[in-house]
């Protein structure tokens, strides 16, 4: 009955909380925890040869340095792995997936991201939710998420995806779902790459890019993120901009008033103006719409790091690189 098992690299960056056989909480806080943690799920070995790599602990913040570490590990193992699974913190999973999508453009191997339904070991404010999950699902969801993620790592997907609950969601379409404790992520336009029943049914007509695979490893976190409220004046001290290399502004308005436009022009920085539904162009900023806010922010961070010339930055921000613009 010998069969060749796929080799999967399992990168651990938080989101690892699970209940062990004695119903005690277990998480990976440092590299020494990995073996014991993995031994709680021996059934995973049926599906793949798993090589775990510790990236960061359960209670560590996910920072651009962590993203770059994940990217380096994936890049270094492209030749010897059949696919990659990244386990990371719930609150940052979408951003992590997006970062990997922009870093590894048109990658031919799958990168699946998943997590436990609870992240972090500060249980004080989570007792009710944890008990509800234990009663309803018998655990925190990580085992079945990992089993499903392992099952799809040899499927050809157009880019990184999040496997959580019963859904496989493209990174560029993923949003947090606060109304469902089974599916804590959803697709903002209700389009899913796959759904789980007894197995994962991958959508048949997924569009794959024909472009060459490219890696862009840098991420620039020195961006100022602002939210504009129409009618409310901005009062931004110019000194602040010395710390930043770019600005992204989210607005619900479809145009920006003259006064704000003048301020934008005075900053002398790359500026991205975002409104999901659309916004009138202005001098001194690139306007984008039709993507999630998370995708807009992550793309700005990525573009700032990889395109130093303003014209190149503006151009690439408008391009639909990884399917981030769905409208």
């Amino acid at each position, binding site marked *: *009955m010998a069969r060749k098992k796929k080799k999967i690299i399992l990168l651990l960056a938080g989101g690892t909380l699970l209940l062990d056989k004695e119903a005690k909480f277990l998480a990976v806080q440092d590299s020494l925890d990995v073996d014991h943690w993995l031994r709680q799920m021996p059934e995973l070995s049926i599906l793949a040869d798993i090589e775990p790599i510790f990236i960061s602990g359960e209670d560590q913040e996910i920072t651009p340095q962590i993203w770059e570490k994940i990217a380096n590990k994936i890049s270094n193992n492209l030749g010897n792995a059949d696919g990659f699974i990244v386990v990371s913190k719930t609150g940052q999973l979408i951003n992590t997936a997006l970062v990997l999508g922009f870093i590894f453009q048109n990658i031919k191997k799958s990168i699946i991201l998943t997590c436990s339904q609870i992240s972090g070991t500060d249980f004080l404010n989570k007792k009710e939710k944890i008990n509800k999950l234990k009663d309803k699902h018998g655990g925190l969801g990580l085992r079945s998420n990992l089993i499903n993620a392992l099952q799809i790592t040899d499927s050809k997907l157009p880019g990184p995806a999040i496997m959580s609950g019963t859904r496989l969601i493209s990174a560029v379409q993923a949003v947090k779902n606060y109304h469902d404790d089974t599916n804590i992520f959803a697709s903002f336009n209700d389009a899913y790459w796959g759904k789980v029943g007894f197995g994962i049914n991958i959508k048949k007509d997924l569009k794959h890019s024909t472009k060459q695979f490219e890696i862009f490893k840098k991420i620039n976190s020195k961006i100022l993120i602002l939210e504009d409220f129409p009618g409310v004046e901005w009062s931004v001290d110019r000194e602040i901009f010395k710390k930043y290399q770019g600005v992204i502004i989210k607005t619900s308005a479809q145009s920006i008033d003259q006064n704000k436009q003048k301020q934008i022009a005075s900053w002398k920085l790359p500026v991205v103006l975002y409104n999901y539904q659309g916004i009138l162009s202005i001098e001194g900023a690139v306007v984008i719409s039709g993507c999630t806010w998370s995708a807009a922010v992550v793309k700005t961070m990525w573009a700032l790091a990889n395109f130093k010339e303003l014209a190149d930055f503006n151009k690439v921000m408008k391009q639909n690189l990884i399917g981030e613009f769905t409208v």
Partner: protein
Amino acid sequence: MKIYFYSSDKTIDSKHVERYLKQVGIEIVDDSKGGINQDASVKPFGKMEALIFQGKNLDARAGYLIALALSQNKEVFCLLPNGNKIDGTLQSLKDDKNFNKRLKIEFYQNTDLKQKIFDFLKTLDKGDIRDLFNIKYTLRISRRISDYLNWKSKKVDMPKADWLRNKIKDVIERDDDYQQYLQDRYKTRE
């Protein structure tokens, strides 16, 4: 009893397994029905008692189902044709103390296939999990019965629910017809 059945071979043996399970009244869930719990449960095995796998090769789907069933504490029964080697991973899971009671691997020939399944179903019947109090049952009672239960609970210093469960267990054990039914449950007429 509900059982998920998967065969990687789809040969005459798999048809025999399916036919036998149906004959003894087992509700089979399989791929042809598209599974159940399509309403987005993360526990697709839900109320199923076990997974039965039959086949020469542990294909990707079998591996997935076995992993999922074990992760949800379900019994897994692997039926392999005589002469086959056990997949290395299955063997190591069998050796794992967490799974060795729930993962059963049997080699069969045509002549004893039914017997193997019969023996497995009997172990399911006897299994500890069937004695777990995990089914919520709503029972309307009269005031007279309620008064009696309150009185009895105090008299024997036992919660009402425990006393009632014990009484029902006694009734089951003393019901000869039912005991005979359990004996014959998985037998079929040749």
